[in-house]
């Protein structure tokens, strides 16, 4: 069995002199989906950014085996580019241009591939950002509020895409205020609040 993708040991992050949450231990195995919930200000985004290596922990240790990608909502693609070019440009950064057609197909973006990212609706941008993530196939994908702009049908599609990525071996860490459809298929549920962390 391969080792964990991410290991956080006694990790904290201090904002304004106060720790965002109590020292946190977290181990993510390949091919798992962990949903993170909590009220606004609980530290979900901070946790995802620490997990992705974008923000250094104030104390504790972070180990990550492989590429970690953090995507906020439908962000991550240059607005001036077409969906196809933007996803190609992102996938090329990790040498995976060949994976782009399949990723666009999985997200149902073939018809939108020639549209500029800046002209897409919020839900379409989420799908485009996910297509880039699928094409890059990171070891760890941290998705920050991917559900906010999605209707029910798009939420169901999101679950299908996340399951496909999980099957491909990506460890998924997803922060959301609409956890219900994701919790049906999640491997773990991390609840943040009032500086505490609970694993359900």
């Amino acid at each position, binding site marked *: 069995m391969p080792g964990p993708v991410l290991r956080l040991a006694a990790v904290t992050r201090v904002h304004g002199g106060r720790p965002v949450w109590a020292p946190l231990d977290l181990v993510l195995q390949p091919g798992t989906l962990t949903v993170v919930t909590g009220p606004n200000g609980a530290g979900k985004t901070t946790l995802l950014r620490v997990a992705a*290596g974008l923000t250094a922990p104030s104390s504790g240790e972070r180990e990550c085996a492989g590429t970690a990608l953090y995507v906020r909502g439908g962000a*991550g693609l240059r607005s001036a580019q077409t969906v196809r070019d933007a996803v190609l440009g992102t996938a090329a950064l990790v040498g995976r241009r060949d994976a782009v057609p399949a990723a666009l197909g999985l997200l149902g973006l073939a018809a939108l591939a020639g549209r500029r990212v800046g002209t897409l609706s919020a839900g379409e941008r989420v799908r485009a950002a996910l297509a880039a993530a699928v094409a890059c196939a990171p070891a760890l994908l941290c998705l920050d509020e991917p559900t906010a702009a999605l209707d029910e049908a798009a939420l169901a599609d999101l679950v299908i895409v996340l399951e496909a990525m999980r099957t491909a071996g990506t460890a998924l860490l997803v922060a959301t205020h609409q956890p219900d459809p994701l919790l049906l298929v999640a491997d773990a549920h991390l609840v943040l609040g009032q500086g505490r962390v609970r694993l359900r």
Partner: protein
Amino acid sequence: MSGQVLAVFRRELAVERAGREALVTTVPFVAAFVVLAGLAFGPAPAQLAATAPGTVWLAVLVATVPLARTVAGAEVADDTWDVLRGLVPPGALFAGKLLWAWSALALTWLLGQGLVGVLFEVRPAPQAIYGGAVGTLALAALTTGLGVLTASGPRRRGLLAALVLPAGLPVLLAGTQLAAEQTAALPWAVLATLYAAVVVTTVWAVFPALLEE
């Protein structure tokens, strides 16, 4: 790593082809700058010849300010900076962005030289090409480092011109002297080379720290 450097560079070219941000911010500016300098310093041919090298380098130096936004500020505005930081190691990200800024500034310098050649009827000294290559490399490294440093926050962005213009002064002096006729080239070539080496090495060394939050 070289593959990722080229991927970052190609991505910059593709974004520029799609949005033409660098084109529309630098080309009209350089053209206007050279024309206005010609009107201000002319019409005596001797005066135009004397001021042409400095006019070109001043235009290139000032053009670094809007160009710096394309390094990281535009990425932050589009919320794509995190993706780049996640997928590309700092060394490759620096090299790819440097390559892009160097290309853009070298083309800006060529444009400036072409305009003073046509409008001022001035031909640069042969060693001006060396000055153009090394000087724009140094400015590209400055642009890359300061572009990242000032990417987030309007107050930081406001600092960009105050930082990049004085820091580019050695390039302005050396590049101008190398393009001028009847100037001993060697000391200025040495200055330009040493300055470029110091700036590229320094920005490369501090780049990972610039990316940290």
